[in-house]
Every structure is written in structure tokens, then in C-alpha cells.
């Protein structure tokens, strides 16, 4: 059951439907990843044009979510999927919800980046923010990769990075608080930066969720709200 042979149904049309569904999720994932990357770049480089593009393109991710949802409903109604096919549909429905939220977070970062773009002063903590952002986007990329390859071990490894991101976010927040206390005139902008960091941290959480769905898809076990160490023990040691 490790390999979900979604191309081996007796009905070739069913194969095509499931394959098409999976491809659409990949495309949506690609769009969301690009949005997140652009949002981070616009923020760090103060690129107001790119920031505006990010802030105004989320509708494409949203319409993709609606489209995929409709296809899932259609397959549920007409095929009554069971076992791994059923888990596939459930996984897709849940994954695209998280992808859509990641899209929202990217949009938020884009909007803050637009406001921050006029603030020309290069800030020392931008490098920490950049580091956090790169870390988060790597995680998102890893989650999408694990989904594409239905790779449980990769999913566990990627989900395992979430605590690091939480720590990075907390350290950055402390730094930003110190900065606000030092220079009260900057409070507005620094708060905006903190919101961006918060959005990045949320993207990490959503990526970790996607990894959990991958484990459910392949193994059939619901690992939400299970301790990370327990998940790692269960799925990584078995070689």
C-alpha cells in the first residue's frame, strides 16, 4: 500500500480524473510557492512593484481552490471512492484549504511590503527576517515535494522543521520589541514587520499540516495533534 497506484483503475477515465486532480493541486502549490517567494523578495528588497503584484494576484489561488473543490465533490458523488482513493480525495480537500491560507498570508506580506517599501532605511533585522522567510519557503517546497512523491519520510522530516521556525519567529519578535523600545518613532513599521514574520510562521504551520495529510494519504493514520517525536519514531526508524 506504500505506492498508491492511482493509474491502475479498471476505468481509465477514473485514472485521468484522479491524475488530473493531483496535477491541479501541484499547479496550485506551485502558484502559492511563487506568491510566497515573491512576497518575501518584495519585502526584503523593498520592491513596491513586485509587492503590488503579490497583493493583487491571490484571486488566482482562490479560484483554483474553488475549482479543485468542485472536482472533488464531483468525484465523491460519481465514483464513491474507497480506501486509498478516498484518502486521496480527503487529502486534496484538506491540502488546498491550507494552500489557500498560505496564499492569504503571502497576500498579507505583499500588502505590508507595499507600505514598507517607502521606508528606505536598511534595517539590521532584515537579514533575520530573510533567513526566517527562506527557511519557511524551503519547508513549503519540501511539503509540496512530499505530496508529489507521496513520500512519508520526507513529510516527517519537513514537518519536523516547524519547531525551529517557531523558535526563529520568537527570537525575531523579541528583537523587534527591543527595537520598538529603542526607537518609538519606528513602532508602526516594526509592527508591520512583525506581522510579516507572523505570516511567515503561519506558512510554516500550514506546510506542516500538508505533511500530516501526506502521512494520512499513504499510511491511513491520522497524525494530527500527535507529538512530533512520536511521529518521527513511528515513521522514520523503520528502514
Amino acid at each position, binding site marked *: 500500500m506504500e505506492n498508491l497506484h492511482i493509474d491502475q483503475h*479498471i476505468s481509465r477515465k477514473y485514472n485521468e480524473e484522479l491524475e488530473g486532480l493531483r496535477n491541479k493541486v501541484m499547479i496550485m502549490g506551485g502558484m502559492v510557492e511563487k506568491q510566497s517567494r515573491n512576497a518575501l523578495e518584495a519585502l526584503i528588497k523593498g520592491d513596491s512593484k513586485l509587492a503590488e503584484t503579490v497583493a493583487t494576484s491571490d484571486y488566482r489561488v482562490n479560484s483554483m481552490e474553488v475549482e479543485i473543490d468542485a472536482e472533488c465533490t464531483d468525484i465523491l458523488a460519481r465514483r464513491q471512492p474507497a480506501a486509498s*482513493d478516498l484518502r486521496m480525495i480527503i487529502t486534496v480537500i484538506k491540502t488546498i484549504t491550507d494552500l489557500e491560507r498560505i496564499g492569504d498570508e503571502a497576500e498579507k506580506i505583499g500588502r505590508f511590503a507595499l507600505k514598507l517599501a517607502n521606508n528606505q532605511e536598511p534595517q539590521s533585522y532584515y537579514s533575520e527576517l530573510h533567513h526566517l522567510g527562506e527557511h519557511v519557503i524551503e519547508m513549503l517546497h519540501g511539503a509540496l515535494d512530499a505530496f508529489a512523491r507521496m513520500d512519508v519520510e520526507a513529510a516527517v522530516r519537513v514537518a519536523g522543521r516547524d519547531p525551529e521556525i517557531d523558535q526563529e519567529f520568537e527570537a525575531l519578535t523579541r528583537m523587534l520589541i527591543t527595537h520598538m523600545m529603542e526607537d518609538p518613532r519606528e513602532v508602526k513599521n516594526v509592527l508591520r514587520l512583525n506581522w510579516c514574520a507572523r505570516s511567515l510562521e503561519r506558512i510554516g504551520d500550514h506546510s506542516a499540516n500538508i505533511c500530516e495529510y501526506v502521512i494520512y494519504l499513504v499510511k491511513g493514520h491520522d497524525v494530527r495533534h500527535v507529538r512530533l517525536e512520536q511521529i518521527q519514531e513511528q515513521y522514520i526508524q523503520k528502514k
Partner: protein
Amino acid sequence: MERNENMQAVLMNENNVSSKLTEGKVEDLRECDIRESAKVREYETIGEPFTDNAKICARDVNVYYGDKQAIIDVSLDIGRNEITAMIGPSGCGKSTFLRTMNRMNDIIPDCRFEGNIKLDGEDIYDKEMDTVLLRARVGMVFQKPNPFPKSIYENVAYGPRIHGLAQNKAELDDIVEKSLRRASLFDEVKDQLEKPGTGLSGGQQQRLCIARAIAVGPEVILMDEPCSALDPIATASIEELMDELKEKFTIVIVTHSMQQAARVSQRTAYFHLGKVIEVGDTKEVFTTPKHELTENYITGRIG
């Protein structure tokens, strides 16, 4: 590209088959079958074939039709007061196994049974066992509704009468009414009990057959595709009825409709080439089957 290769493989296979046929080597084909079933023969049943408080315990059951083996080493418990569904492709032995549980296979010449089946601890293949009484305890409902060409009343009254379950007409009337009520048919037919049972609709006829089966007070009801000749509405009412009946009876159903097995049963057993491949909680079998053959069957994949 891959599909093309698949197609080619299929075509080559077909060529093989036809050349074998033209050369008259039918034996080769049978050898393929035998090799496949030899592989399946090795499989251990996975999941939970045994339950606490089982109504029927089948152990090491083998059934042969002549020299062909239809059931291979099946050991399976049927849980009390629950619905057990048996699914699997045509010719997998599920109906044969169902019929071993009230010795309906005895009627078939050439059919040989080995193993052991106990109903509440009592060996039903014991020489002393009266099969007529056994079949009253383990009733059966068939694929096609088969009411007797008699009145609705007589259809239900026949069994209790020959088994001497009623002392007088009033008691018999009572059994008939109760059975028809339990089969959710009474209200529809109460004013036409003297009309022929064959005049009812398909769904009503099937419920009449269920009423007939429960009139003799069975402990177990075996159902062999009870809804395959019925429309979805009649099917839904039979399924609703099964759910109520399981409070009082133990039910075993053979069905080709996976959705039906998923809807009505508490446990599901998957049969393949005469073996029980997997048994388990219905919820688990339909969401996370353990055996690849089960997975392939319930998701409609090429095995």
C-alpha cells in the same frame, strides 16, 4: 507512452491466449489458473477473522466441487447480532461459503465439505444434525425474490405450520402478522393477505421472503445478494430492515455492491479465489484495507 506499452502487453497476452487456444492447449491456461491460485493459497488471512462471542465459528473449511476446490482453508467467525458482509469478485467462493453455513451445498451432487462449522458450539456437520431443523435455525434469502405460488398469508404460514410452531389458527395468524411487521411489509399488504405473493412488486416480494425466513424463528439469516434485483428505493428499505433485524438475528450478507457492504455491515470479509484474504471492521476495510488485493478490489483497480 506507458499506456501504449501496457496495451502492447495486453495484446501480446491475448495473442498468447488465442494461440494457446488454437493449439488446443487448454491445459496451459488451466495451469496459469492453478499457479495463480497456488500463490493465493499461501496467503494467511489478515485482519481479525475471529471475534469474541461468535455465533458461528468456521474452522479450516475446504469445499470441493468434483476436483475443483472452491473454498481453501477458510477460518472465520460470524459475530452475534451483527451484520457480516462477504465481498469479492465472481467465483471467489463467497456464496459457496455462505451456503456451507446452513448446508445448502449438501443438495449439490459432487460437492464435498471438509472442516468444521459450529453454530453456538454445536457442530452443524454432525451426522445427527437434522438439516431441515438446521435450515429453520439458519434461514436464507436469495438473490431473486422467490415467493411460493400461494397467497401472501400462506407464504409466511407455511414454515411455522410444517415445523409445528403454532397450536391453532389464532397463533398462526399472530406469527404471520408479527413476521410481516418485522419485515416492514404488514401495513402494505394487510388488506390483501389472500392475494398471491407473486403479485407483489419486486421489493415487496423480497420483504415477503424475509418475512417467510423469519417466521420460523431463525437465529441466523443468510442473504445471497438480496438486493441485486431491486431498485434503489426497495434496496434502501431492505437495508433499513436489516439494520433493525440485527437486534434480534445474526445476519450474513453476500453482495457485489461494495457500497451496500459498507453501508450495512459491521464486519467485512474479502474473498479471493477461494481464500479469505482480509477480515475486519467494515470502517477499516473501506478506508485503510491492509491487503493489496482488498485495496485493488474495493477501489476498482486491476489486480
